């Protein structure tokens, strides 16, 4: 019988090895996937016991903080923290929210590890031995409180839409406002209601998720591709009649105005469709896509927000994916920001910022520094280059043309006295848009630009939905207000 006993023991050893195998699978190999499961509230419940760090505006305004809630002492720890947002709806976007039952979003989600003070496993063992409670770090953002307030107030006056402002030399995001806003403090009681609101979509950050036809603002990209590829120089003239025939369809200038042979500055100043349509055809698919992609189109913008809350800009095919350079597109219409082209306000801000920064596109970042509970700065934003879509010379040439837009062209409402402004308006027709009530006269009104033109400190994009007016009437004034606030010291 002894032989069988030994075999039986061997079998038990195998069984127990299976137990250790499964335990390792759950606790190590599959652990991350399990922690991310919707049904798993444990990580959030645990984080609720940690004093989550605060989120601050650049001037120290408290955007988010955690307050202790006393809890009837039962099993486990009696302390619990709840998130409070003292400024209410002003920073609902892009800061988002963080609650146990409702989960988290936007900046709160992206910077979760820093906010809860997550450390390496050994680090937390050391803390445990020292009897130290885990405590979160504060994050100071780049957000300019005054400018954010101006941006949201202007938007609420003009209509649904978004404003983004980025410091060109660093990528620091100074403003990100989205109308319709929501108050994150209300999320625990009315998340479902907010989610159900499909007309106003308050939970949608229109700056990063609003996909709008960029209209004439895209001519900046087309011009960049033209100059960069050598297809044109600033002096090259192209004949711009009132109408051209493109792919069997008419493409008109406003009022079918015939401009004759003109160069870039005149074409951009007057936003001449037939001129840019022909330029697009001249540049060709490859070069246009190459420039677009360097500006960030067709990929997730490198901002510190969760990937699934930042949409790609590009030419959207029927399957909901962006097309690439080998797909057939109507180039002339792409060149003037129509066709199936859709861009987020963030994407267009990246275009303006790259031009402003001498052709270098910096990674847009909302955070500025992480400060530990003892007040030490443990990490600071190190500005980094995302791409170099255009040369410094091209940037300079584009800036000159864009200055014309504001000083004498379609964007005069963006002008600031004593400060040269470079910009571009856009008025994309969005007839029959359900969200606008299905009217036929509705436009997406845009302004993209930067100031001062000679020494850019801020690149700003304003985009307003469902407007019956032009970019210059609706969006350019927002640009001006926000730019003035930031240039006048802001914070």
């Amino acid at each position, binding site marked *: 019988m002894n032989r069988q006993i030994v075999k039986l023991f061997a079998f038990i050893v195998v069984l127990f090895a299976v*137990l250790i195998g499964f*335990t390792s699978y759950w606790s190590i190999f599959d652990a991350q996937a399990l*922690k991310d499961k919707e*049904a798993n509230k444990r990580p959030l419940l645990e984080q609720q016991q940690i004093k989550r760090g605060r989120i601050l505006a650049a001037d120290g305004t408290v955007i988010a903080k955690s307050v202790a809630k006393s809890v009837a002492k039962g099993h486990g720890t009696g302390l619990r923290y709840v998130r409070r947002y003292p400024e209410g709806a002003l920073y609902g976007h892009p800061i988002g929210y963080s609650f146990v039952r409702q989960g988290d979003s936007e900046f709160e989600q992206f910077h979760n590890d820093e906010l809860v003070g997550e450390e390496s496993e050994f680090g937390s063992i050391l803390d445990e031995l020292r009897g130290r409670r885990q405590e979160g770090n504060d994050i100071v953002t780049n957000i300019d409180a005054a400018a954010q307030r101006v941006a949201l107030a202007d938007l609420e006056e003009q209509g649904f839409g978004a404003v983004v402002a980025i410091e060109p030399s660093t990528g620091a995001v100074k403003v990100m406002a989205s109308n319709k806003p929501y108050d994150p403090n209300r999320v625990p009681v009315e998340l479902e209601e907010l989610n159900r609101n499909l007309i106003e979509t308050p939970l949608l950050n229109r700056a990063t998720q609003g996909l709008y036809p960029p209209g004439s603002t895209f001519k900046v990209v087309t011009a960049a591709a033209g100059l960069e590829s050598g297809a044109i120089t600033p002096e090259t003239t192209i004949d711009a009649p009132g109408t051209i025939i493109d792919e069997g369809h008419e493409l008109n200038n406003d009022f079918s105005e015939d401009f004759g042979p003109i160069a870039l500055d005149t074409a951009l100043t007057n936003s001449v469709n037939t001129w840019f349509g022909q330029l697009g055809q001249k540049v060709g698919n490859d070069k246009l896509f190459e420039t677009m992609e360097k500006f960030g189109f067709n990929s997730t913008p490198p901002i510190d927000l969760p990937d699934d809350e930042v949409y790609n800009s590009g030419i959207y095919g029927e399957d909901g994916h962006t097309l690439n350079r080998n797909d057939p597109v109507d180039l002339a219409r792409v060149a003037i920001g129509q066709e199936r082209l859709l861009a987020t306000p963030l994407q267009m801000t990246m275009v303006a910022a790259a031009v402003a920064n001498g052709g270098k596109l910096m990674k847009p970042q909302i955070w500025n520094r992480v400060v530990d509970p003892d007040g030490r700065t443990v990490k600071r934003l190190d500005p980094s280059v995302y791409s170099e879509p255009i040369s410094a010379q091209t940037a300079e040439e584009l800036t000159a043309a864009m200055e014309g837009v504001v000083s004498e062209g379609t964007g005069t409402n963006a002008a600031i006295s004593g400060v040269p402004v470079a910009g571009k308006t856009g008025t994309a027709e969005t007839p029959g848009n359900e969200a606008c009530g299905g009217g036929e006269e509705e436009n997406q009104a845009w302004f993209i630009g930067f100031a001062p033109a000679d020494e850019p400190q801020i690149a700003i994009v304003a985009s307003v939905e469902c407007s019956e007016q032009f970019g210059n009437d609706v969006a350019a004034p927002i640009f001006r207000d926000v730019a003035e606030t930031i240039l006048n010291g802001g914070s």
Partner: protein
Amino acid sequence: MIKRSAARNRELVALIPVALLLSAGFAAVFAQENARLGNLSLVYGAYFLAVCIATHIFLRLRLPNADPYLFPLVALLTAFGLVMVYRIDESLARDQANWFVLGLILFALTIQFLRDYDVLERYRYTIAAVGLLLLLAPRLPGIGQQVNGAYLGVKIGPLAFQPAEFSKICIVVFLASYLREHREVLIVGARRVLGVTLPPLKHLGPLLVVWGASMFMLVFIRDLGSSLMFFAAFLALLYVATGRFSFVVIGMGMFLVGAWFFASTVPHVHDRVEIWLNPYNDPTGNGYQILQSIFAQADGGLFGKGFGQALITIPGTHAALLPAAQTDTIYSLIVNELGLFGASAVVLIYLLIAARGFKVALLADDGFSKLLATGLTAVFAIQAFVIIGGVTRVIPLTGVTLPFISYGGSSIVANFVLLALLLLISDRARREAATPRGAFALEGS
């Protein structure tokens, strides 16, 4: 004489780290809860050590030759269990400590009055009947209790217990005795039919009865876990007694067919299997316990969150985040707080106990002792497997306790009786191994 004290000395030395571990464990829990180190942890450690030393002295007097490692290993598990249960709820730990003492008293009584454990053979049918009756008791009106759809508990007046814990010992005793007598016939009478070795028809009956009893448990007690535990112990004994692996294969097949049949017809059993396969179908209802068990483990990682750090209830409420943390899912809590390392250590202790138990069986001289030691060890190891496997989703989760660690009086007391029997067998085996073989080697009589 030198050898006998050597075994007990080793036992004594092995007990010291156990007491230290207990003190350290309590210290860790206190530190977590009060943020200060009281000397109460040392007091508890000292009490524990005192009880263990009393037991040790008793063993020194009564069973000087018994295996020196079994008791310290079990004490280690008990200490560990006490700390875990204390960490969950202080009042539960007080109960648990009382049961530990009660368990040791029964342990001592067993050793005192069953020195000649061969007597068990004489009453094997009575013992089998008692075992079956115990199994059935939870279905008896008036005293039976249903917990989560399974009938596992009995309540007579103020006394509540889980009869299956005691029943397993009775059944093993019966099987060991029965198989000791019939193993020859089962081997010799075996026929090869269609290339498969089958037991002789005449002796198939009793085996079918055991299979029937397991199926019966599945249907009437509705507990897949105990059913599996009993049947696996039976197959292990059958295999060791006859050396016929084919019997095991046939038995396993029969069990699976039966289990499959009942899983598709008995709703409670069906639910258990369904939850096991698709827990995400109902994450807040039926699937809650197993999912939370696994989420708790995912939270543990390699080294765990530390004693007293895991969340057991949803903060601010009494709603369970890890349901039945003190019983069914205590292993998940261990993974959460002590990580894969700590949990592997626990599994390793069970394995070491199994190794010592089988060693006892190897050393034992007569068939009954061999089979009894094998059966007791197997049923113990399989019980640990069934519950750990349940909470790690190796098999469907059922309500079996983790021996010596889970909160529960029946489990502790019954397993101490089991340990007493193992030590009794061990003492005799090692005594005989130490003295020259006499004329009274009566195996197979």
